[in-house]
C-alpha cells in the first residue's frame, strides 16, 4: 500500500517537475568577431597592487571550441586622471599585457586606452574600495539544502546607500568559478552574508562540498555601472533561454571605440579593491 501511495505522489510531483532536459543541435547566427577587453585592475587589500594584467582576445562563433583568440600587437596603457601618471602595459605575445609598477589609489580615476587594428578604445573607471571579509565559516543550515555543506562569508556594508559587490568563489580543481553580485539596496548598512553551496548529485557525491575540499573566495568592491554589467552578464550566463528569464540582450561594457563606434568592444575596464580568503572544509 505504501508503495502505491508513493507512486501516486511521485507521479504528482513528477507532473510539476516533469520537465526533461537534453542536448540538441541548433543552428545559431554568427556575428563577425569583436575585440574583447578584459581589463580588470584588482588591488588586493594589504598588497601593493603593482602587478596588473590586461587580457585582449576576440569573440568567436558560439559553438567554436578551439579558442585561439589571443590578440597580439595592441598598444595598452592606463592613465591616472588625477596624477596623470601613465602605466604602459607590455605585450606578452600571448594575449596578456602586463605592468609591474601600477599605483592604485582608492577612489582614484583611471582611463584605459587600447589601440588595436588602427582603432582606439577608451574607458574610464574609479577604483572602488571595500571594507573586507569579516569571517569565513562552513555550515549545514542556511543554504538551499540543510544536508549539504556550504561556505559563508560575512562583510560590513558602510552606512551610505549605493555599495556594490562581486563575490567570486572557485573550488580548487574546478574549471569555472561561481560569481555572484550584491547591491545593498535591500540590506543597506547591515552585516552582509553570502553563502555558496553546490548541488548534490547522487551519481557523483564529490560534486558537492565535502570535508577536505578547498575553496577560494574573493570579494570585490565594484562600481554601480560595473554591477549592472556583471549582474546581467552572469544572469544571462546562468539562464539564457529560460522562459522565466528576461530576453537576453547584447551586454555593452564601458570600452568605447572612438574611431568607429559601431565596432565596440566586449568586456570591461574595472578598477577594484578586493579581499580574498582560502578555506578548507572540515
Amino acid at each position, binding site marked *: 500500500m505504501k508503495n502505491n501511495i508513493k507512486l501516486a505522489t511521485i507521479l504528482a510531483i513528477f507532473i510539476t517537475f516533469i520537465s526533461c532536459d537534453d*542536448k540538441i543541435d541548433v543552428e545559431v547566427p554568427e556575428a563577425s568577431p569583436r575585440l574583447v577587453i578584459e581589463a580588470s585592475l584588482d588591488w588586493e587589500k594589504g598588497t601593493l597592487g603593482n602587478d596588473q594584467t590586461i587580457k585582449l582576445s576576440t569573440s568567436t562563433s558560439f559553438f567554436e571550441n578551439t579558442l585561439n583568440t589571443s590578440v597580439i600587437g595592441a598598444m595598452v596603457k592606463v592613465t591616472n586622471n588625477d596624477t596623470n601618471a601613465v602605466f604602459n602595459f607590455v605585450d606578452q605575445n600571448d594575449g596578456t599585457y602586463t605592468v609591474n609598477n601600477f599605483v592604485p589609489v582608492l577612489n582614484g580615476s583611471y582611463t584605459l586606452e587600447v589601440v588595436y587594428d588602427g582603432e582606439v578604445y577608451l574607458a574610464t573607471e574609479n577604483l572602488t574600495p571595500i571594507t573586507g571579509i569579516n569571517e569565513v565559516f562552513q555550515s549545514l543550515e542556511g543554504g538551499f539544502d540543510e544536508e549539504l555543506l556550504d561556505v559563508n562569508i560575512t562583510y560590513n556594508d558602510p552606512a551610505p546607500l549605493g555599495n556594490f559587490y562581486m563575490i567570486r568563489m572557485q573550488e580548487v580543481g574546478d574549471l569555472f568559478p561561481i560569481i555572484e553580485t550584491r547591491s545593498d539596496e535591500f540590506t543597506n548598512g547591515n552585516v552582509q552574508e553570502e553563502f555558496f553551496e553546490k548541488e548534490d548529485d547522487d551519481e557523483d557525491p564529490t560534486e558537492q562540498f565535502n570535508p577536505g575540499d578547498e575553496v577560494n573566495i574573493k570579494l570585490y568592491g565594484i562600481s554601480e555601472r560595473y554591477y549592472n554589467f556583471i549582474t546581467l552578464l552572469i544572469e544571462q550566463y546562468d539562464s539564457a533561454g529560460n*522562459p522565466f528569464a528576461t530576453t537576453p540582450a547584447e551586454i555593452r561594457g564601458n570600452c568605447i571605440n572612438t574611431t568607429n563606434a559601431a565596432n565596440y568592444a566586449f568586456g570591461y575596464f574595472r578598477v577594484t579593491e578586493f579581499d580574498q580568503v582560502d578555506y578548507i572544509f572540515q
Partner: protein
Amino acid sequence: MKNKIIWICLLMSTFLVAQEKFSVSGTIKDQKNGETLFGATVYLKGTTNGAITNEYGFFSLTAKKGTYTLVVSFLGYENITKEITLDVDQTINFEIKEASTSLETVVIEAEESERLNIRKPQMSVSKLNAATIKQMPVVLGEVDIIKSIQLLPGVTSGGEGTAGFNVRGGAADQNLVLLDEAIIYNTSHFFGFFSVFNADAIKDIKLYKGDIPAKFGGRVSSVLDVRQKDGNSKNFEVNGGVGLISSRLALEGPMFNKKGSFLVAGRTSYAHLFMPLIEEIKDDKISFYDLNLKTNYEINENNRIYLSGYFGRDVFDLSQFIQNRYGNTSANLRWNHIFSEKLFSNLSLIYSKYNYELVLDFIKLDWVSDIQNFNIKYDLRYYTSDKLKLDFGVSGISYNFNPGEIKPSDPTSTINARQLDKKRAFEGGVYVSAEHELTDKLSAQYGLRLSTFNRLGGQILSDYANDLPVVYNSEIGIYEEGEEIGTTDYGRSESIKTFANLEPRLGLSYQLNDDSSVKASFTRTVQYLHLLSNTSSVTPLDVWAPSGKYIQPQKSNQYAAGYYRNFKDKTYSLEVEAYYKNVDNRIDYIDGSDLIGTNNIETEILNGEARAYGLEILFRKSKGKFTGWFAYTLSKSEQRALGGNVGGPGINNGDWYNTPFDRTHDISVTGNYELNEKWKFGVNFIYQTGRPVTYPDGQYQYEGLSIASFDARNANRLPAYHRLDFSATFTPTKNKNRRWQSEWVFGVYNAYARRNAASVSFVQDFDTGENEARRISVFGSFIPSITYNFKF
C-alpha cells in the same frame, strides 16, 4: 462627426417605433435543472423577427399586432412552438428540454440559431459551453477552459506550464478575464498547468477576439466572459470527479422554496496529502484548490438577486527554501430588474483581488504584493423595437495596488523592511450601444464608450532631470536610469494624472443569402493597467501597474472583416476572418531591465507600440455522430520601441521585432466521435510555429567563462510545437434508469511523445568547458490519465 451619426441613427430609430407594435418578453430555462439559458433563440415563424436570450436568459421581441407562431430553439434542445396573439405586451416564460436521443447531442454549440448567426453584426466571438469543454482531451484529465479556447483560431499560449493565453498576437495582460463579471488577474494554477476555472461550476464562456461590445472596456486584446452556473433550482444534485491530480465536488439544489438555488463547488489537488509520507519531501507542500459559490433568489417575476464568489489558492512550499502562495478572490452581488417587457437591467457590485506571497528562506526575505478592486456597474438593455436594441450603462472601478512589501522573514535576516509605493486609481466608463437592423440584409452594431482613468494621489513620485526617467547613454549605446532630481508628494485628494478616451465600436453585417454573410468591424479599446513582465511568459509574481505620469494608457484599433457560411442544412459551417490591429503605448523594457522590487518602474521602460495582423479560418461540423472543427491561423505580431524624446535608436535598434506570442502558423483540429451510448472518443491535434527567441550569435571569454553575445531580439525561433491527444469516455450501461450516473474518462496527452521545447538554453558544460544547446521539454513523453466522474 462619428458621434453625430450615432445620434442621428438613434433618433431615426425612435421614430420607427411609432406604429402599433407589441412586445413579448420572458425567460428561458432548462426544464431539467432550471438553469437560465444564454443564447437561446426566440423568433416569430415566417418573419425575420427574432431575439436571443441574454446572460440571464431574458428575451424580448417586438412585432406588429397580429397572430404568430413563436418558436424557441437552442442547439441541443428540443424546439418549442407556441401560438401567440400580439395585441398586448406580455410575458411568457419557457422551459425547454434537452434533446432526448443522445446521438443527436450537439457538441459544439453555435452562437444561436444559425439563421441569426449569419445575420447578427457581432463577429470575432466564440462561445463554448461546459459540456463541450469537458469532452476535449486534456492533460492529466484536468478539464481546462483556458486550454480549450486555445483550440480556436487566433488563440495561442506559450506552451505547457505557461500561464495565460494570447489572442490575435496580444499579450496575456491584454485579456479581460471575467468570472461572473469579476476581474480575474491570474488565470492559472501550478504556473500554468491548470486553469482556475472549475468546469463543474461553469455554465458557459464567451471569448471576444475583436469587435468587443461597448459594454466591455479596460483591455485591448480580448474579453473572456466566464459565467458560473446558477445551481439546479429543481432538484438537489451532486457532481464530482476523481482524477490523478485533483478531485472535485459540486453540490447544487433549490433554495427558498424553489424560488432560488445554490451551487457550491470545490476542487483540490491532493498530492500534498501524501507528501508527508515520503522522507525526502515530507516537509514540502505543493497544492492548489478553489471554491466556487453561487446562489440566487427570485424575489418576483421582475426581480432576481444573485450572489457569486470565488476563492482559489496555489501553495508551493519547498521546506527551507521557498514558500509561495497566491490566488484570486472575487465576489459579485447582482440585482436583475425588469422594468418592463422592453427594459431589462442589472446592477452589480463586484470585488476582486489577487495576492501573491513569497518567502525565500535562504535569503530570509518575505515578499507580499496584491491588487484589488471594487467595481460598481449598472447595465441596461432597451428593446426599442424589432429593429433596434439599445445597451447602455455605467461602471466605476476603484483599484488599490500594492506592488510589493519586503520584510525580513526572521530576526537574523540581513534584509531591511521596505514598502514599494502603494498606488490608487479609479476607472470610469459610460457606454451606449445599438444593435440595429438597417435593412433586411444589413445590420449594424454601433456603440461608443467613454472611459476615464484617474490616477489618485497618496504617494510620492520621483522627478527626473529633463523629465526623463530613462536616458540614452550615447557613449556606450545603452539606456539607463535617468537622474532623479527630487520628488513630488501627491496628497490623497489630489490627482496625479487623469485620462479620458472615446472608444467607438462598429460592426456591420450584410447577408448575402440565407446561408452566408459578410461582416466587418472596427474596435477601439483603451487599457489603463499594465502587467509588468519582461520575460517570455508571465509569472504569478508579475505586478500590475496603473497608467499615470510616466506610463501612458495602451490604445488599440482593430479592423476586422469576415465571411460566414453554413453548408448542408447547417451541418457544416465556415468562418474566415482577417484582422489588423495596432496598439499604441505598449510599454517595452530596456535591455537588462530589472522589474522585481523596483519602485520606480518608469526608469526601466520605453514607450513602444505593437501591431498584429492575421487570417483565421474555422471550419466546423456541429451535427451528427462526429463533430469537431479545424482551425488555421496565419498571423504576425510585432512590437518596437523608438527612442523618441529619450534619444537613441530605441530598443532593438528601434526595429520591429517579433513579440513572444508571434506564431506564423497555428493549426488546431479537435474532434469528438460518439460510437454508441457507452463510448465517446475525442482527439486534438495542434501545430504551432515555434516561439520567437533570441539565440546567441557568438561567444567570448570573460572572467574565465564563455559569455554568449546576442544581437536582435526574438529573431530566432524554437522548433515547431505539435502534439496529439486522445480521450475516451466510457459510460456504463447500468447508468440507465438509476439516479447514480457515472463515467470514466481515459486520456493520453502528447500521444506520440514529442519533446516540444519549452525553451532552449545555451550553456557551458562545466566539465568540458564546451558550449552546448539544451532543450527543456515540459513533457518528455506521453502523459496518460484517468478520471472518474459521477453525478446523483
